[in-house]
């Protein structure tokens, strides 16, 4: 994989990172100079140190790499970093308030015991956030459908669905 230069200059005179991009990452404006073939997953993890973006399958199947792009869940492993240009990106690192208060979904996942190994959790929480932002009071089927692109190998999903219900209740208050 090519090296990422998040400061935007090209190194050593060779123009390997040919694409300048600027976007908002967890509420802050950022910029980078990247190769056109680089994945958003690699830029976020290695360029910006956001290791909450997990790589499971690397092929769009497991959802561990889910981020919100302009509010919609996408697989960062299938997303070219160049596509971040001009977008608003949310990763799990941007979910809690700056003072550290957890987002109601994060709190609900803890309360419902919806986290075991935790590898799927960032993607689950983000996919659930995009659902609740659009539908504050989803039924179980809608939750299952919204999370159908996110695999969990530990919990058996029941507690995850319960956590989303809990968070929805909390957020409607």
């Amino acid at each position, binding site marked *: 994989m090519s090296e990422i230069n998040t400061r935007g200059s090209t190194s050593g005179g060779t123009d390997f990172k040919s694409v300048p991009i600027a976007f908002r990452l967890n509420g802050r404006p950022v910029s980078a100079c990247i190769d056109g073939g680089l994945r958003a997953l690699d830029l976020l993890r290695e360029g910006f140190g956001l290791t909450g973006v997990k790589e499971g399958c690397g092929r769009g199947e497991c959802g561990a790499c889910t981020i919100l792009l302009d509010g919609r869940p996408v697989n960062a492993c*299938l997303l070219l970093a160049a596509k971040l240009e001009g977008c608003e990106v949310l990763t799990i690192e941007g979910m809690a308030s700056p003072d550290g208060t957890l987002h109601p979904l994060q709190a609900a996942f803890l309360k419902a015991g919806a986290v075991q190994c935790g590898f799927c959790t960032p993607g689950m929480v983000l996919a659930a956030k995009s659902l609740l932002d659009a539908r504050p009071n989803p039924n179980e089927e809608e939750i299952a459908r919204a999370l159908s*692109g996110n695999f969990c190998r530990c919990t058996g999903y029941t507690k995850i669905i319960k956590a989303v219900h809990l968070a929805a209740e909390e957020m409607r208050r």
Partner: protein
Amino acid sequence: MVRYITPHSLNEALQILDQEEHCLPLAGGTDLTLLVRDRTVQVECLLDISKLPELVGVHQEGGEIRIGPSTTLADVASSPQLPTALRTGAGWIGSPQIRALGTIGGNICNASPCGDTLSPLLVLGGRFRLRSAGGEREVPAEAFFLGPKRTILTRGELLVGIHLPREDDRRSTFRKIGGRGAQTIAQVNLAISACWREGILRQPRLAVGSAAPTPIRIPAVERILDGQSLGDEVIAEAAERTAAEIRPICDQRASDRYRRWVVRALFRDALSSLTEQEVYG
């Protein structure tokens, strides 16, 4: 090193494709990103056509519906003016994540025999408009696919429009079987459209995906159904004929025998849901 170009207009995009030898159009990238990364596809330059205003959106124009190829699968699935079969096919692709990024044009140009928008487009009388720097042509959906991952697109040519005739009394439906409910590549998919008036089926069209090297229409079954009132015998004959007409491949996802067996059940299910529909779809 891969260059990445975001053109501002369709004309600019076509000029670039004309001039650059190793430049590939990129829509959502849900198919192409992996190929570039695995180096299955050698590419020097990617041309991002996903945000070109000329290629995005669903528009009604006279007696036609025009879908921009860069419209996402999520938007296709939730466009009420589109026929049921196409909305359902798009809505069953992958996961919410895949549908937010992937486009209908990418699904078409990727030309996988199991593409879930393809059999719907075949039964809805879909026509594709193709354009290059040199000119434009329009072809029926059936004429576009040559084989797995092979289409009639020539170098420098883009799919620029998907056209459906607006037929208010035609209904349509889509069915798919995969390994599980969500996030599954079709082992078989099937679309039917027809006019259903006073208990008689007219001008039926049937297409099956994942059952031959390209998605295919099945005219022999369409002839059996045309003008019929759909008694048990006709349905049984048509279901048998559907299973006989497909040319399934045997791959890691399903055997030939299984695909023939399942296509009968999908066919019966699709047909009954079609005749139960109340409104235009």
